[in-house]
């Protein structure tokens, strides 16, 4: 069966510090991968998605970036965090072989920028 992992689970970082969040998927190959952010009490905002290694599409211009160095690894990064980067970051995957299938979400990383 497929499993999606995210780490760390929680993170407290000062403004201006760098960020690296990691997401890995097990039990499937060539997944579509997504990064979302959820501000407190709000809906989900799609940040990035990827259909393959090295292929990243950005949905919202901001100080975040994403990379996909391996087939089942997705990384979200920032060189300098802003207060507005605080939120709940969710990674998700979907099957490239089931284009109408649902997305499956990881447990999330709660980021607080102080």
């Amino acid at each position, binding site marked *: 069966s497929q499993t999606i992992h995210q780490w760390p689970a929680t993170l407290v970082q000062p403004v201006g510090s760098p960020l690296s969040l990691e997401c890995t998927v097990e039990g499937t190959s060539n997944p*579509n991968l*997504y990064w979302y952010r959820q501000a407190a009490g*709000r*809906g*989900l905002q*799609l940040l990035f*998605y*990827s*259909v393959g290694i090295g292929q990243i*599409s950005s949905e919202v211009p901001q100080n975040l970036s994403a990379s996909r160095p391996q087939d089942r690894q997705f990384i979200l990064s920032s060189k300098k965090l802003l207060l507005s980067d605080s939120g709940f970051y*969710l990674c*998700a995957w*979907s099957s490239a072989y089931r*284009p*109408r*299938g*649902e*997305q*499956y*979400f*990881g*447990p*999330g990383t*709660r980021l607080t920028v102080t």
Partner: protein
Amino acid sequence: ELKVEQNPLFLSMQEGKNYTIYCNYSTTSDRLYWYRQDPGKSLESLFVLLSNGAVKQEGRLMASLDTKARLSTLHITAAVHDLSATYFCAGGDTGTASKLTFGTGTRLQVTL
């Protein structure tokens, strides 16, 4: 660009009552999804609706899709406290990568 709207945003209901959450979307979408989120947790897939007239049921929840009206509903029958959560609908964008556009969510609180 696909836009998805849910209403109500907040719903407080008594145990045993019935209610419906509505999800409208702005442009053609060939699929609609419902997710549940418990406080502080991730999203859990509830239903996948892939065709006009599709109806799915799981326990006290039933979801339906009307693509002509661009409307999906999530009906709650005889609510129980365990159903308290935030419910999101999401429409599928056409094109690659199976992108989804999420609604703002409906926070459901079931009281005794």
